[in-house]
């Protein structure tokens, strides 16, 4: 066999084989892993490979089993996994140097490592062990299994184990030659000049002819698009595409977008969709319960809770982020009902409902475990099993390897946590185990290279022969070559004395540098270096080779900002002219206040029942009301979980409902006590986010203020000699043609004479807005509830501001509280509301819906409008549609 060997050739090389045109037999290009595999096969050694995580776990177990004090003892106690991983790397390096663990070592760290290595007799072999095994076989071998080895990298740049292997092959008779790197481009070209300058030739650097192009773009997608176009313009010669970091996902969009084949390289990532399910499953099983985590699980692609059920649960979480409350239970009841409807009379289907619901409940109603004390082992194993089952089923249906990987991941985590041997597993430990099992993640199983006349390589070092063009995609900074050696001078001396010297500190940096330079030297015609990203031209974003070449590139390089392609019909890059197409200008959607009423509006409106809130919205902005209440446009689920302040309000309302039962109001102290008693349970049911440490002060606030607020409300009722008639009183009615209304009044009370007092509970930071409503006759909610509850009968009403512990009502009401001199009575306010509703409806039917937050609308408002409310576009979800937002 006749091989080409390079340090970076395992992931692909250019050329991709060692023969001539058309192909070759027995002339592969291999990297270290390929070479060792090839030798193992020829020698009949080697065995099934164990993943590195298994090796680390094994070494960790060895280290933990050692008795005595070692230099790593403290670190092992703190982070066993990382400690084992680091020490294993050191051990592997020593094995690669050819050290003997059985020798007496004097340097303390080497002596300690020798103890660990001797104890690690069951450690699955790594690459250096396999090299050592090959070398051992070679001790008894006379003939080389390989006739000829062409080295891409000079032997002095090889790390010790590889170097010793290659030297041994040479000694056995393999013909060894280093592929000479010469300037491949003609000397008169800029590229030729650059190459000769790199090799130290004294030729003057002058002129740039486009054969060396450094292209940059703040926008990586733009860079990908242009490189895609550039490839389309290459009709002759070979191209080596260097995909730094081995990923061409973005570039592939650029290539395929212009009809070019994809390079198909996908980097391993732990962030791929289905891999996340295990993390999510555990996340929603820790205390405090995290509604966001459950919501993410419910809307997860191919969620284990079927969308038809997940929808109801997500809805309940939006309204009351917690579990066990009325909303949550109602959601389950609805799910059950829908499943029964779905099954119809099919007995099998009906029988399947129970198990199906139980399965969903397992996902949605996991017990939460204390993260510090830990989750019971059994529960964590069940979580892993559930994920395994889910992923395996998905794999069976789709044959998608990522599901298989997810299933394997859950299986590995299960094995690992079972092996830990603890009854309870703290959160940190579980997350660390998952993190380890995830390792580097997975690449996209759907990515694959498409047939092309060019080749992509993941590292510049694997371009080993002259090629017409080199394109270096993602020519940006790298940590390559910066690794530092762990060995002290004393250790180095002892290793050298034992005939297993450590590599020079700089070998890694020099090898990387040589590899980077080689790809430039191998270009015959042109080099195109492409960097993208916001900081792509900043010093710390540049590839070290850019620093290295800078003095020459400043003279012979052609620097192109690819943004130029946005302003020109044709752009020449590295000798290829790229035609661009004029962009048809489109007008930017601008803010508009007037919208023609669509045909579907009225039929929809006829179906809706208004509420006090929807009327408030109508009086604030007609368009917002139309989109929210008539069209029912709504944002996504996760975004809908209320913030801490809203949660406090919801809690206050829920508690008030229970504290103030019909009859005589409780004594203030009793009200406070009841609130305190109820609070913690209701938080879990309705406001679980408050349990999270980030909201510690909001939780304190709830504990401090809610009982006080209830006491104050009790005092207010008592001061006014009111009896509680009902809380959450459902009311409905129809006014005007088509104004159907429904609502729930927070608290209805009666005075001694039996007159109704309507109390709306409010939780706000500042009382200012509510005071203004009363004073300006715009208290829509109070007026609406009054009309719904009392009809034509007299009533009194007011806001009870829970946070401020104030009852605010209109002057002249005869009630005790903060009395506001209002411009209108509540019945007058109601009359104004009804009139306004009618006006808005008429105006919509006449063909126009107005966005009242948009500048210029004032002159178009119906002049007879009797009541309006402030517009708060900054808080409006729909301002992206009227375009009051985003005017740039």
């Amino acid at each position: 066999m006749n091989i080409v060997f390079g340090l970076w050739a395992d992931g692909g090389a250019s050329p991709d084989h060692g023969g001539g045109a058309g192909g070759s037999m027995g002339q592969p290009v291999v990297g270290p892993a390929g070479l060792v595999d090839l030798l193992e096969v020829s020698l009949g050694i080697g065995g099934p490979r164990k993943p590195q995580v298994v090796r680390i776990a094994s070494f960790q177990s060895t280290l933990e089993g050692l008795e005595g004090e070692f230099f790593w003892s403290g670190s092992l106690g703190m982070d066993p996994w990382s400690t084992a991983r680091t020490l294993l790397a050191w051990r592997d390096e020593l094995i690669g140097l050819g050290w003997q663990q059985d020798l007496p070592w004097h340097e303390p760290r080497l002596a300690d490592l020798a103890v660990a290595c001797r104890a690690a007799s069951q450690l699955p072999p790594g690459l250096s062990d396999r090299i050592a095994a090959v070398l051992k076989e070679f001790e008894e071998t006379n003939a080389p299994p390989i006739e000829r080895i062409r080295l891409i990298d000079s032997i002095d740049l090889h790390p010790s184990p590889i170097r010793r292997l290659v030297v041994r092959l040479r000694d056995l008779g393999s013909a060894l030659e280093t592929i000479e790197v010469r300037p491949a481009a003609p000397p008169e070209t800029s590229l030729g000049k650059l190459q000769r300058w790199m090799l130290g030739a004294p030729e003057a650097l002058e002129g740039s002819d486009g054969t060396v192009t450094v292209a940059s773009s703040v926008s990586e997608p733009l860079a990908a698009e242009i490189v895609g176009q550039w490839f389309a313009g290459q009709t002759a010669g070979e191209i080596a595409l260097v995909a730094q970091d081995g990923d061409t996902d973005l570039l592939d969009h650029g290539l395929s977008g212009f009809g070019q084949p994809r390079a198909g390289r996908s980097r391993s990532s732990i962030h791929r969709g289905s891999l996340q399910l295990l993390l999510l499953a555990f996340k929603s099983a820790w205390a405090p319960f995290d509604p966001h985590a459950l919501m993410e699980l419910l809307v997860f692609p191919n969620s284990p809770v079927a969308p038809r059920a997940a929808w109801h649960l997500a809805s309940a979480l939006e309204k009351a982020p917690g579990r066990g409350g009325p909303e949550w239970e109602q959601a389950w009841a609805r799910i059950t009902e829908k499943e029964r409807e779905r099954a119809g009379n099919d007995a099998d289907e009906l029988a399947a409902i129970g198990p199906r619901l139980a399965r969903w409940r397992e996902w949605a109603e996991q017990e939460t475990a204390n993260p510090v004390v830990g989750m019971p082992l059994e529960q964590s194993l069940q979580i892993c099993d559930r994920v395994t089952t889910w992923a395996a089923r998905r794999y069976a249906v789709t044959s998608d390897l990522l599901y298989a990987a997810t299933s394997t991941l859950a299986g590995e985590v299960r094995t690992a946590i079972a092996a830990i041997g603890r009854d309870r597993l703290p959160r940190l430990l579980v997350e660390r185990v998952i993190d380890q099992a995830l390792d580097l993640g997975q690449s996209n199983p759907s990515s694959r290279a498409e047939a092309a006349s060019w080749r992509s390589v993941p590292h510049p070092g694997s371009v080993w022969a002259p090629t017409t063009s080199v394109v270096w995609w993602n020519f940006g900074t790298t940590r390559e070559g910066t690794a530092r050696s762990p060995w002290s001078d004393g250790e180095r001396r002892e290793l050298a004395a034992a005939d297993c010297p450590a590599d020079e500190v700089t070998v890694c940096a020099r090898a990387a540098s040589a590899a980077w330079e080689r790809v430039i030297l191998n270009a015959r015609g042109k080099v195109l270096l492409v960097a993208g990203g916001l900081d792509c031209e900043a010093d710390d974003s540049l590839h070290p080779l850019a620093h290295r070449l800078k003095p020459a590139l400043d003279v012979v390089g052609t620097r192109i900002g690819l943004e130029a392609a946005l302003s020109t019909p044709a752009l020449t890059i590295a000798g290829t002219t790229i035609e661009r197409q004029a962009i048809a200008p489109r007008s930017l959607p601008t803010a508009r206040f007037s919208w023609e009423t669509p045909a579907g509006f009225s039929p929809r409106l006829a179906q809706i029942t208004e509420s006090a809130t929807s009327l408030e919205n109508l009086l604030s902005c007609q368009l917002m009301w139309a989109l929210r209440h008539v069209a029912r446009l709504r944002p996504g689920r996760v975004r809908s979980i209320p913030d801490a302040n809203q949660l406090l309000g919801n809690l206050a309302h829920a508690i008030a409902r229970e504290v103030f039962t019909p009859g005589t109001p409780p004594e203030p102290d009793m009200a406070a006590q009841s609130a305190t008693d109820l609070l913690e349970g209701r938080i879990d049911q309705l406001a679980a986010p408050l349990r999270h440490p980030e909201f510690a002060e909001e939780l304190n606030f709830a504990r401090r203020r809610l009982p006080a607020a209830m006491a104050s409300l009790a005092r207010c009722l008592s001061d006014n000699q009111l009896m509680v008639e009902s809380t959450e009183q459902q009311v409905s009615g129809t006014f005007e043609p088509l104004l159907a209304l429904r609502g729930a009044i927070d608290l209805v009370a009666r005075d001694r004479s039996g007159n109704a007092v309507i109390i709306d509970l409010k939780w706000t930071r500042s009382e200012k807005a509510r005071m203004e409503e009363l004073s300006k006759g715009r208290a829509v909610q109070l007026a609406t509830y009054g009309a719904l509850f009392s009809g034509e009968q007299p009533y009194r009403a007011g806001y009870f501001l829970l946070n401020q512990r104030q009852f605010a009502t209109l002057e002249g009401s005869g009630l005790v509280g903060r009395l506001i001199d209002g411009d209108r009575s509540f019945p007058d306010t109601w009359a104004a509301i009804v009139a306004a509703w009618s006006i808005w409806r008429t105006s919509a039917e006449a063909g126009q819906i107005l966005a009242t937050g948009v500048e210029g609308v004032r002159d178009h408002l119906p002049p007879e409008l009797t009541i309006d409310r402030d517009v708060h576009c900054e808080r409006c979800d729909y301002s992206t549609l009227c375009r009051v937002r985003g005017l740039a």
Partner: protein
Amino acid sequence: MTEASTMQNRVDTTIASAGTGKTYRLVEEIVAEVGAALPPHRILATTFTKKAAAELVGRIRARLIEAGRPDLSAAMLSARIGTVNSVCGSLISEFAFELGRSPVAEVIAEDRQASVFSRAAGPVIEEFGPAISEIAERFGVQARSYSVHGRTVRGWQDDVRRAVDLARSNGIPPERLAHCAARSAAGLLGLLPAATGQAAEAFDAALASALEACTVELDRNKSGLKAGTLNKDVPTVDKAVRTLRGGDRISWPDWARLAKLGATKADEALFTHVVAAAAAHPRHPGLKSDLQRYIELIFDCAASCMTAYGEYKRARGLLDFVDQEMLALDIISNPANTERLRELIGAVFVDEFQDSSPIQIAIFTALSRIAGRNLWVGDPKQSIYGFRDADPALTSAASAAITAATGGTTGYLRRSYRARPQLAGFVNAAIAPNMLRVGMSEEEIMFDGCERTEDPDGQPGLSFWDMSGKNKVARTAILAGRIAGLLSDPAGWTVAMKGGGTREARGGDIAVLCRGNAQVGDLAFALSQHGIRVAVERSGLLFQPEIEFALAAFRWIADASDTLALAELARLATETDEWFAAVFDEDAKAGLIARVPFADALAAIRDRAHQLTPAEILDALLHAETVFATLLGWGNAEQRLQNLEALRGMVEAYQDEQHAERQAATLTGACEWVASRDNARQPQSRHPDAVNIMTYHAAKGLEWPIVILTELDAPAKGSPFGMIAQDEAAPDWSSPLAARVLRFWPWPYGEQQKDVGLDVSAPASPEGIAALAEERLERTRLLYVGLTRARDHLALANTGGSQTWLEELQANSGAPLISNAGTTINVGAEAFASRSSPDALDPAEATSDPVQEYMRPVSAPIAHPPLRIRPSDAILLEADVVVAATERLGDRIPLVGDPDLQLLGEAIHRFLAADDPNTGTTTRTSRAAATLARWTVPQVAPADLVEISDRLRSFVDTRFDGAAKLKEWPVHAEDGLQVVVSRLDLLVDLGDGYAIVDHKSFPGSVTLDQDRLREFAGQVSQYARAIERITGRKRIEYWIHQPIAAVMTRIELTE
């Protein structure tokens, strides 16, 4: 002398004024050190930013190449050059075992620190919250900070966090915070009037009774009250009365407000008693006890938070920047590490030492006991990070003292390579008196020459630009108009070129320096009114239509129930109102989908979302057909693409954060995370015509041909209130953290800033005087930084009134130094030629023709076959396949049990590949046994494996008459644009062709149904074509070798 001091090495210092070639000098020094045989990996150099580090490394490497040392240049990759934190991080990693820490330290990103802290500190906040909040509410302080009118009002949790941060960054342990509390309280309470002996209740009662009486009077006079009284005073009294009636105490801001009632003369008398009672608030014992208790609680809470935060991080293996520095200091200071450290670090170079924090100074000092060569380079005049807790006084004192104490030399770089002589002279004259007065020397302060020369016929470099106007908007508009005027007269504003000569100015030559981001934004807007490009990060990234558009698509992929996102897509993607009609359709969702041109493409991305990362999903949606055409059609394509790049960065950042937290990265999570960052900024333009606008702080280290300094009227605010770190005693350079202490003076009056007593007593206190003096000095340094950014033209923008900041540059007499004298700008007695400012253009004069922009031409999608053909996947359909021959090799090999067939196959393959019949049977059998053991298939006897090999050899030798056998032979053949890559089990060279032998180790015999035959035939066909292309030989035999069944079968294709 202590042991430590005997090991002290020399420290040299270089004071480098602005633009005097500091980086050049550092490069030369490091190159010289490496050239003098110090291995590059023993170099340690710290810089203030990552960019500076990269620039330094790049220049050193280039310099080494120039010097003919490419070997050293390559080796420089392993040098320890970076920010202080990255250098500390590398040391921690290398000494992790010595520290007993995890070898993989996870550093908490700066923008994640707040959330990590709040999680760690949650239980402590829960514990301390009630007690702190009780007092904080009386001080008008909320729990968390909030914004009002563009201003951030701090909450008490911010004070706790700041105490924690400051204590840590000054090396103050939690147990010392009680001392800090006592010291702080003593100082602050000393500013309040002495106690009168009157009890707190008496003060309260007096105010309560006055208020009740006042209420009665107000009711009685209600109808006659003036508007001012009704609107301001009455609500204040009402609120106070309500508070008292509710059983609560009146807050101190309300005491202060009550003390200021009666501003309307006509009603003043109604409030006399309330005012008298309330005005006693500075003497109220409750105020003192509240302040004392509050300070104690904040420090107590901070101490507990420090502990909790430390434990939280320790449990998770997390480090923040301060931890990195403290740990590095521990490593460097530990004598046990000295020997190893000396191996690792031979020379230390510190850049920008003046910006170091106290811990960093301690680190550099400790390093000077390790490295034989130490050089600290910096410029005390440019120390402007007081707000980030650098301590210029400590830093300057420490560097001077260590240099002197170690016998080091102090060098000065005074020759300007940046500024033209006129500007350098102006800076010397303007800055020197202030700096000299605080003890600096002329060498430290003044340029002593310039590399550039003045063109005697050239334009003067200095100018005053009038920008007086009635309000901020008008003033900004004038400045923008003048910049527009300059750009309309580029020939009048020439700038020097690097190689010599001059050229006309363009936008990118200009930098406007502002004090804060608000003015940066205002000016950017004003310039955009003139159609002038600006290079500035602007707010509102998420509100840009292209971002809304991309995010709407992202959200809809994440959650198909998000009809709002769908409507946004339809709204932005189309130019008609059809979307609006669709939302009211019976099936609104379907209607909207029909109106989004690329909805199918997005739905297809959703279908494969489980294979992609959130970042890949974003890229995929951006490339859905017509998406870019839609976005770019709105014009200003470059900025929109930059904004999208920022969005891409945010999604990557989300993924990184989730990884760091070991949490799931989901699409919905990404949507929520991005949406919550509504302060994200638009990246600045890179266009060469874009005018640079930035803060003075951000301008440090940069230079431009034309620099305009603004906000020279900004007043000094120096206040002793708040939390600061200081030295309790004179600092000791050898132990810079020993005397560090915190001082916290809370402001108890909320928004009430004036006429409360403390507003007068505090500034007059020694602490108040020192605070103002320190701020003034920092302002002088900041002005120096601004003045020294200019290469050719320096403009001072004058807002008309008092230029407070500029006037702080004073002669010894206290008189402002700089004055505008028409054709000259005078600095004291020295006159510098000046020029007139450009005329201010009106925005209406700006002409903006629509700019045609370009994109990639639309291209039809093309399906490409995969690059690699896998012969095992090939199924031949177009030819008939027959079994041409079957030969038995012997008896079937018995299997005991149920082996894993894949492993068995591997074992057989491996053995057959390596087996050498020339070695003895014992050796072969033992190798077979080893192979079977390694592949865990004991179900086959080793001797049987040898038998399999012998049978195969015998068959091949007989059948092919001793032809050469190539085992496990790689084949790589091109087939059009596709390639066949494989390794053949056994290839027999027939001279004019090959026999391919394929081992199939399944235990049964080949079931020769057509499907299986076609599979084999597919392989045959692929291999045959491949080999023919490579060798030109056309004769191929294809044999299936079944070692267990002991059968050889020849497959043949018939046309």
